Every structure is written in C-alpha cells, then in structure tokens.
C-alpha cells in the first residue's frame, strides 16, 4: 500500500475503505453504480430478456409439451433459460468498464478488490433476478403454469441459485474480460462449475414453478444450494484480489 495521501479527498477516501461498515458502503456504491448505468442504457437487460423469451418460445415449438410434459420439463427449462440469459448480463458486467479505461480507474480507486467484486456481484444478482422473474411470468403464461401459487418458496430458491450464478459468473467475467473469445469463454467455464447448483435448483424449482409442494428429499438440495453459495462466496472473495487487480 502507498503512504497515506495528505490531501483532503485522498485521506477521506482511504479512510472510507477501512472497517466493515465502509466495506459495505463501498460494496453498495459499486452495486448502485452498476445498476444506475444499466437502467440508463438497459442494453444488457433488454438483450437478456428478449433472449429468454425467444428460448421459451422456441422450446414450446420444439417440444409442444402437454401439461404432464411441462411438469417434467419446467425446472430444467427455466434454469437453462436463466443460465443462458444470465451469461449475457454477466458478460457485460466487466466488458462495460473497458471503454475509457474505467476498469483501471475502478481498480485504482480506494475501493478494496473484495468490495469491488462483491458490489459487482450484487448488481448482477439484482439484474439477473429481474430477468428471471420476468421470464417466470412469461413461462407462466406460455406454459399455463401456476407459478404464483408458491411464489415465496420459488423466489427463495431462484434467489439462492442466482446468487451462485452471479458469484461464479462475476468472478469469471472479471477473469475473461480481456480475452479474445470473451463471449464464448464465459459460459464455457461457468456452466460446468455451476452443475451442482443447476442440479439442485432444477430439482427444487420444477415442482414449485408448477405450484406443487416439494418432495421429501428437497432439504438435501436446499442445503446443497446454501452450501455452494457460502463456499463459493468465500472462495471468490479470497481470490478477488488476484482476479481483479493482478
């Protein structure tokens, strides 16, 4: 670390970056900045939303499912849509910082790398949740599913799965931001890592999206989701300095 800067703003900023309360403040500032800039352009949101509607539509054409088949397919279909549409948002997360060298400025700012990473993750999580809730509504209409009947549980499961998606996705978005094949590499790396989460989330959201109660063994899957979230959040925070700063 450099010696404390004596000018007014410098010291204030550096002091702002120490302690848990200011860590939280820095995290929220980054998340708010990301959300604000996304809501102004809406480019990733619109693309992601349009993409998920197209997949839902194509799926219905491709398999023309009956109610019985929809029940079997719902969880898998939803999470494939979430994962594919999510990649669009996650790709933009760091790519958006490339013009005007914003990424260098962010890294050089007094925000510690874990706070920067967590803020980005939080912002992505909010955006992904918005896209997913909208696709759930579209799914409910297209496939005649009573997805609102167990809305609380469904949103909880989707939130847990999406946290894993944004934790892993944001870290890889940071890693791959300077690569030639960025758009291709991100899903290629993220999906295999996320397989446990996708499995668990599919098992849990399938019945919930059709308005049905969860089976007996659902507790194990829920524990898996929470465990994955905790382990990978800790790991990603520990590695964020290496991933972002170098």
């Amino acid at each position, binding site marked *: 670390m450099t010696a404390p800067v004596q000018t007014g703003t410098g010291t204030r900023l550096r002091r702002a970056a120490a302690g848990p309360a200011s860590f939280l403040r820095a995290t929220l500032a980054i998340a708010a900045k990301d959300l604000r800039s996304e809501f102004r352009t809406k480019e990733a949101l619109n693309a992601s939303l349009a993409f998920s509607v197209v997949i839902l539509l194509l799926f219905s054409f491709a398999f023309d499912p009956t109610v019985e088949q929809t029940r079997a397919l719902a969880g898998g279909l939803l999470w494939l849509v979430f994962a594919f549409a999510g990649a669009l948002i996650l790709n933009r997360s760091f790519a958006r910082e490339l013009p005007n060298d914003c990424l260098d400025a962010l890294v050089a700012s007094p925000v510690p790398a874990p706070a920067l990473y967590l803020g980005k993750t939080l912002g992505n999580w909010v955006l992904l949740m918005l896209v997913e809730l909208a696709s759930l509504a579209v799914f409910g209409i297209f496939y005649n599913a009573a997805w609102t009947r167990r809305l609380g549980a469904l949103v909880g499961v989707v939130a847990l799965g999406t946290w894993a998606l944004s934790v892993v996705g944001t870290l890889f978005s940071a890693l791959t931001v300077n690569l030639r094949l960025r758009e291709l590499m991100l899903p*290629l790396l993220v999906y295999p*890592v996320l397989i*446990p989460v996708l499995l668990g989330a599919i098992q849990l959201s399938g019945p919930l999206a059709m308005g049905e109660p969860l089976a007996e063994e659902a507790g194990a899957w829920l524990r898996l989701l929470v465990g994955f979230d905790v382990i990978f959040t800790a*790991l990603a925070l520990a590695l964020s300095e*290496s991933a972002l700063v*170098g």
Partner: protein
Amino acid sequence: MRVKLIVGCCIAAAVLLARNLYVMLLELPDEVAQGPIFRIIFFHVPAAWTAFAGFVAAAVASALYLVRRDLRYDAFAVAVTEVGLAFAAANLVTGMIWARIIWGIWWTWDARLTSMLVCWLLYAGYLMLRHAVEEPGQRARIAAVFSLLACVDVPIVFFSIRWWRTQHPQPVVWGGGSMDPAYWSMLFLNWIPLLLLGLAMAAIRIGQERRQRELEALRRLAYSL
C-alpha cells in the same frame, strides 16, 4: 538430472507394469460374475486416482503461484493438469469399454460417470482458458484462479450428482463393495507404475514449458534489438 529422473521413472514403470500384467493375466483368476473383463479395473481405478492426484497437485501449485508469482509454479500446474486430464480420459475410456461388455451400453448418466465427465470438462476448460490468453503472467494468474475454483468444485459435483442418481457398482473404496485381498493389492500395486508414468510425463511437460518461456524471452530480445 531431469533426464535421469524421466528415464528412471519410465524404466521403473515399465518393469512394474510388466510384472503386474503377468500376475494380472496369468496368476489372478477371473472374477466370478464378470469374467476376464474385470481386470480393466486395475487400470480404471488407479487412472482416476492418478488424475485426482494431478488435479490436487495443480491446485496446490496454483495457490503457490498466486502467493509467490513465480512462473515455475505455473509450469508445474499446467503440466500436472494435462497429465491428470489424460488419466481422467483413460479412466472414462476404460470405464466405457467395461460398461459396453457388462451393462451392454457405452454410456449411462450414472453418478460417477457423469461426475468424471464434468470433472474432465472443467479441466479441459482450464486448458482452453490458457490458450485464450497471450501474456504469460496474466495467463498464469487467470489459470491459477480457475484451477483453485475447479478443485473446490469437483467434490461438490461428485456429491450433488451422487444424490441425483447412481447405477455404478459400489465403489471399492468408501463403499459397500467387497473385493478379494489379492485384487485389492493389485489395485494399489498397479497404481505405482501409473503414478511413475504420470510423473515422467509431467516432468517432460515442465521442460517444454521452460523452453517455451526461454524462446519467448529470446523472441522479445530479438524484437527489441
């Protein structure tokens, strides 16, 4: 020194392998239910162990790289990952040959098969990621972060897919499966030549990485003149 190590490993592996093959094919009897094909387990299981040993070694080397920032750790990590991937592929292929004869199908979405395939895909992704980055320092850093994530992910993948479904014969280790002691000792005895072979391959690969770095340095020097 390095050449002696490689040649020594290879000779030891060849001698042990010849001895093991002799015992395996001529001394050990066929398994009652499965017949002669059962012997594939002496390569199938140790190959998986060797692969996992490689992946764990790669994670340790990756962590060391992130702490020390010495490209030699990176060379070690990529070498053992590639060797591990080769052994994981050997595990998958031998498993498929066995499954074709015993189950009558090449592939089934059973827990262990699926997990090993996911594991293989993860580390294949690691190699693809390396190919996509030009600058050696950046490549080493990105690959190290990914290797650590992958290593933590693999056990979770195995657990989750195990809950999902299972059809594989009870694993001989940590499972209800039982095996004759003669088969058991052969399983471990045959692990030694595979490990030695992996070690020799990794040593060769590390040498290639070092020469590659030297070449790049010379090229940079030539351009700067």
